[in-house]
């Protein structure tokens, strides 16, 4: 008999107090103060990316932006646990994960500026093109993990999705396949309490972490605003996967502090009081408090972190504004990997059409 995850895994209270939890402590025992400071920097930087991108959107430089505000610990704690040969299959909100994977900052914005449909080459950073179709990527991760198992590799796939996504058939089918084939995949659900305007209670009648055990997948319910707890949970999943133990499901309980996207107005559907309550559980604040209590939150750290954030934001803005528009005929590129007679005909048709304007302008060559 498999148990539902009874406990809510927390290693760091909102006040920044490191609490002991016997089953989880060993998994983060090696984390040094320096590493904590590095994750603090990560979180400050990705929050800054978020702020900058939101500003760019307001200024008309981006079409849309999905903020991750509030979910920094969930994303940093998990992504910083991965190896470079692991592979990420995410949704649209995992910009902090992309950051950890070493993405070129500008690449994060290509999609939201409308310049391209994906920003980066998945194989360069070990992270697939994000899925906008809710839940679809969980099957891709499971398939990738099947391949990793066939290859005899100990690489692991991790898939990020939201609380809303758990209602989609695909996510459930992914759990069926992952359990049947016992493949190395981590289902990482960021339960940020909302799917646009729908509260998590509409999607799941019980805690989300309770879903997986019935599929034969052990699950962990973790404080998603506690970077250490998230790291411990992810490492447990990775370790299990690398050692042939199959899939793990992690529910990271967090909160979407911002709107769904810059197009959304959450005051239409949720109470400000709820946001205020979650502000007290801010993931960055509690790590800062811990660092402070360890004597590590120095003016130097603060300055260095701010400098990094400033530099990244500047690079991001410059990259965004400097991004060239794609050339018209690229609209036909890469539909197929090999030539396609019908499409080639259409490309020629459109090239002629465009050229007719040049001709009319007297600028034809």
């Amino acid at each position, binding site marked *: 008999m498999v148990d539902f995850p009874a406990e809510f895994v927390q290693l760091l209270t909102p006040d920044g107090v490191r609490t002991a939890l016997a089953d989880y402590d060993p998994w983060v025992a090696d984390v040094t103060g320096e590493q904590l400071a590095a994750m603090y920097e990560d979180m400050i930087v990705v929050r800054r990316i978020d702020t900058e991108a939101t500003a760019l959107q307001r200024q008309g430089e981006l079409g849309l932006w999905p903020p991750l505000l509030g979910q920094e610990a969930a994303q940093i704690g998990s992504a910083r646990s991965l190896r470079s040969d692991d592979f990420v299959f995410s949704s*649209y909100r995992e910009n902090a994960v992309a950051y950890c994977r070493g993405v070129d900052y500008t690449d994060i914005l290509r999609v939201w500026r*409308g310049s391209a449909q994906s920003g980066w080459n998945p194989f360069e950073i070990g992270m697939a093109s994000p899925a906008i*179709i809710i839940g679809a990527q969980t099957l891709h991760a499971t398939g990738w993990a099947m391949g990793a198992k066939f290859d005899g590799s100990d690489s692991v796939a991790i898939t990020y999705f939201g609380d809303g996504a758990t209602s*989609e058939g695909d996510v459930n089918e992914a759990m069926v396949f992952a359990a049947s084939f016992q493949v190395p995949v981590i289902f990482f659900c960021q339960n940020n309490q909302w*799917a646009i305007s729908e*509260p998590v209670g509409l999607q799941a009648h019980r805690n989300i972490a309770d879903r997986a055990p019935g599929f034969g997948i052990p699950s962990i319910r973790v404080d998603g605003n506690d970077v250490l707890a998230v790291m411990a949970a992810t490492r447990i999943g990775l370790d299990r996967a690398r050692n042939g133990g199959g899939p793990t499901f992690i529910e990271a309980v967090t909160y979407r502090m911002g709107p769904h996207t810059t197009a959304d107005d959450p005051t239409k559907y949720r109470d400000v009081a709820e946001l205020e309550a979650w502000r007290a559980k801010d993931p960055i604040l509690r790590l800062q408090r811990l660092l402070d209590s360890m004597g590590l939150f120095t003016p130097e750290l603060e300055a260095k972190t701010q400098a990094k954030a400033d530099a990244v934001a500047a690079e991001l803005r410059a990259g965004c504004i400097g991004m060239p528009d794609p050339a018209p005929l690229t*609209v036909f590129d890469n539909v197929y990997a090999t030539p396609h007679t019908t499409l080639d005909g259409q490309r020629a048709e459109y090239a002629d059409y465009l050229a007719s304007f040049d001709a009319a302008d007297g600028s034809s060559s």
Partner: protein
Amino acid sequence: MSITTLNPMTANAVRTPTTLTTPTTLTLAKSITAALRQSMADDPKVVLLGEDIGALGGVFRVTDGLLAEFGANRVIDTPLAESAIIGTAVGLAYRGYRPVCEIQFDGFIYPGFDQIVSQVAKLHYRTQGAVKMPITIRVPFGGGIGAAEHHSESPEAYFTHTSGLRVIAVSNPQDAYSMLRQAISSDDPVLYFEPKRRYHVKGEVSPVLGESMEKAVIITPGTDVTLVTYGPLVPTARDAALAAADEGVSVEVIDLRSLAPVDYATLEASVRKTGRLVITHEAVRSGGIGGEIVASITERCFNYLEAAPVRVTGWDIPYPAAKLESHHLPDLDRMLAGVDRVMGR
């Protein structure tokens, strides 16, 4: 797990519906709201299902206010699962309801495709008429809004190729109102396509059922070329006809309105008169509605055609990134080029 006090599931009817009684100027989006409100007021079996249609009023605010007016048993915020939205609508229809499903964006209809194609479309046939499927599926469709992937698709031809469904697309506030009311009262399942980039277009809307939703309508009369379109491109086609007139070509613009069945009587009469057909849509060319209409009109009017019909459509590509969409979507210039082609100029 917290359900906030604003959870639509706990909300109940509080306001009385205020329906349209006199001609009123409304946006296309608000005329859909008005039609929903009227249909719900008229028939307690009309229920709405969809993602974020409750407290938020839908991502396009089309259902705004309806939860407050009709309560959570009539305006049902569903979990995030399109197959279930359609599949539970089938069950509700079995129980005598007339569900109206909202698919948030065109590109999200595919997870519900099986339930539409294998169940909604076939159940009346399968049961020899015993079970009716009076289900309306509302789909905001088309591009031109600079959106991310999957938010600008034109999937209508998948459904016009599916026997058992009716498919309509609206282009103006009055039709949006009248045709939705007809769709909801229809005992057949109807795919109702809403031109999302025209949601803000305004027009006077009378609370009438108007012309049958199966009829095509001549928007601009003309004599040289028949220009057929539907949904978001109707205003563009009208403008193209004006521009063509300046160049001495008289273009008759037809708003198809019904994509399945197509009103061939109206199309045929026009093409017999003009001898020339151009059809334009955002959807990709191969397998699109344009080809079907070209084929059918060629079959019916072969001896009247003075030139090969011309299609002005999206290319055979996945919908491109926002910065490229103007190179995919037919616009006034491409329509005029199509008119020139069919005129042999």
